[in-house]
């Protein structure tokens, strides 16, 4: 007996109610607040801001809450909101040398102006579960080392500024003189070959896991011939300015937390670069060193064509990387397979059955045309 598949509307409504129930969990426990997520799940908020490409800690925290902690879903929520926002103007180039750093390290130099600043890092923590966190901590036991942006150094020169005088490290030239003409991949379609600005934008909001895997593959020989070095990683607050068109007046509108990574590696082909080292660059919103490093490595791998190196592996292939690194796109398309495909599957069935019958023989063209493979009713 065939029952028409009506009632999709009601089913969707029920699914949403069920989901809200699952999100809330056990109602005997207090509901988690957006402020708590913003303050206590800061790295999750950072990742959502980066992949959602919108710097707003409150909205990112809301997205984390709404998505039950599914960070890819949360990034999607933020993106779908971001797309409705008007774009006022590009800002003047961020000067990360003016960063008030919470952390700054170089693996290429033992010491450098400004020093090595370890900052809040998991790098040297032993990954042992801290069972004391099972209980809430008394507020008196929490000590703040840095509680104000104002107490941080106000300027820390970037490694590449320092090395500039030696001519050992390349200084990338701006692709265009006009800052306003920097492409915005959210307002113009990404086309290939893509400019480096467009590429770095795509990588900055790309999926952390995908980029990490690609960077790793390049490092294992599927892309790099030499060993890359961490020239510098810095994480901290950078002033964000806007420019008034008429008065050429720059006004600081706030501070944003970013992580920046510069990778140095040798140019393989002689003559590709006058200097000894070329840069791979990564800048992402929030505190996310793993992502910034992966972006810098992938950026370096993607410079292969420009530097005259042979493009053999996925990490070096611009179209492969940039078309597949966005998790809002990839998650949507992979999951669209859940949508009904009855019509296409039926078309395949008709074909497969017909081919099957023909290979068994005995079916002539005329009757096979009329058969779906089913006997009459």
């Amino acid at each position: 007996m065939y029952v028409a598949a009506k009632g999709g509307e009601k089913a969707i409504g029920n699914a949403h109610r069920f989901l809200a129930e699952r999100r809330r969990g056990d109602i005997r426990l207090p509901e988690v607040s957006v402020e708590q997520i913003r303050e206590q799940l800061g790295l999750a908020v950072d990742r959502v801001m980066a992949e959602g490409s919108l710097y707003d800690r409150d909205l990112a925290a809301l997205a984390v809450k709404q998505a039950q902690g599914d960070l890819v879903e949360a990034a999607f929520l933020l993106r779908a909101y971001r797309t409705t926002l008007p774009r006022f103007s590009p800002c003047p180039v961020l000067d990360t040398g003016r960063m008030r750093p919470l952390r700054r390290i170089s693996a290429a130099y033992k010491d450098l102006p400004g020093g090595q600043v370890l900052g809040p890092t998991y790098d040297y923590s032993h990954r042992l579960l801290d069972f004391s966190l099972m209980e809430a901590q008394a507020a008196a036991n929490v000590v703040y080392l840095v509680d104000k942006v104002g107490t941080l150094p106000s300027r820390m020169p970037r490694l590449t500024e320092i090395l500039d005088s030696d001519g050992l490290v390349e200084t990338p030239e701006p692709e265009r003189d006009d800052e306003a003409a920097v492409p915005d991949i959210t307002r113009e379609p990404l086309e290939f070959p893509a400019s480096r600005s467009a590429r770095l934008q795509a990588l900055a909001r790309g999926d952390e896991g995908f980029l990490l895997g690609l960077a790793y593959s390049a490092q294992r020989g599927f892309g790099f011939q030499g060993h890359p070095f961490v020239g510098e990683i810095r994480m901290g607050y950078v002033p964000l300015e806007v420019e008034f068109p008429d008065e050429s007046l720059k006004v600081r509108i706030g501070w944003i937390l970013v992580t920046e990574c510069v990778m140095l590696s040798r140019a393989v082909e002689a003559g590709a670069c006058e200097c000894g080292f070329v840069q791979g660059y990564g800048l992402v919103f929030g505190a996310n060193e793993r992502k910034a490093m992966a972006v810098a490595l992938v950026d370096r791998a993607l410079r292969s064509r420009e530097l005259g190196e042979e493009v053999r592996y996925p990490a070096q292939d611009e179209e492969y990387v940039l078309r597949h690194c966005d998790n809002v796109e990839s998650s949507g398309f992979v999951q669209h397979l859940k949508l009904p495909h009855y019509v296409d599957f039926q078309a395949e069935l008709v074909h497969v059955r017909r081919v099957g019958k023909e290979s068994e023989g005995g079916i002539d063209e005329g009757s096979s045309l009329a058969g779906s493979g089913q006997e009459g009713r």
Partner: protein
Amino acid sequence: MTTTPGFPVPNRPEEGGSGPRRVWKGLPGYNVAFLDEVTKRMIRRTILKAVAIPGHQIPFASREMPLPYGWGTGGIQITASLLGPDDVLKVIDQGADDTTNAVSIRNFFRKTAGVATTTRTEDATVIQTRHRIPERPLREDQILVYQVPIPEPLRFIEPREEECRLVHAWADYGIMYVKLYEDVSRTGRIATTFDYPVLVNGRYVMSPSPIPKFDTPKMHRMPAVQLFGAGREKRIYAIPPYTDVKPLDFEDVPFEIEKWSQCCALCGATDHYLDEIVTDDAGGRLFVCSDTDACARRRAEAARGSSGNR
């Protein structure tokens, strides 16, 4: 006003004029039909370009929509940029108005644009579809919007966009014919059963979106304009009304469509695309129309006919 300050908003339709006009109603905090007017203008310009070069894929700055990529965002963006307050929208998925994603998209436009919706093909001014063309022939004053997963017909032969663009530019479609020929040499037939490549206006090879071969001939010289939106792939293309659309084939292996030995178990139609329903665990099957509107209408007409005869 329910829109956010700073957004350009469309002019309200003039009061009076011919017939009663509906007034825009939308979702608080968002522009009508979700997209801001600048984006809608950008999409309309892309559509105009697409209509001017039938079958050619035009890149556009696709937006993130509140529905996932791969779930119809290209079609949704086209529909959002086209809908006016007087439009009547029909949304189908697999030919049916009541599949969950069709319901979801229809609700999206009801919520964000306050637009009237229908399931009746002839009442709709805009029909957004996934994987089917309605059985009922469309008219000049209707627009058919297709959701497209992969706009590039050459994608599975040549995955690289830069290469594909050259192939299109030179209209050098040899590789496509080689692929079809290889099918014939292996199985005696062309193995492509849906998303069957077509030549539009004698110039561009185009993906008709994953509609079954059964629907492909309906595209040929259709009076309605056909618009194709691929949101994730950021492409829009179009077939203007009354344009030649020819499926690729060979003289000795002509294009042919699916046929069934049975008719629809519900309405008895013999000329509709049929879905197969498994009815029990003994392999019992039923065939029913995929186009739910066409099927329901045939049944209603039959019921009227029999009561009239009494």
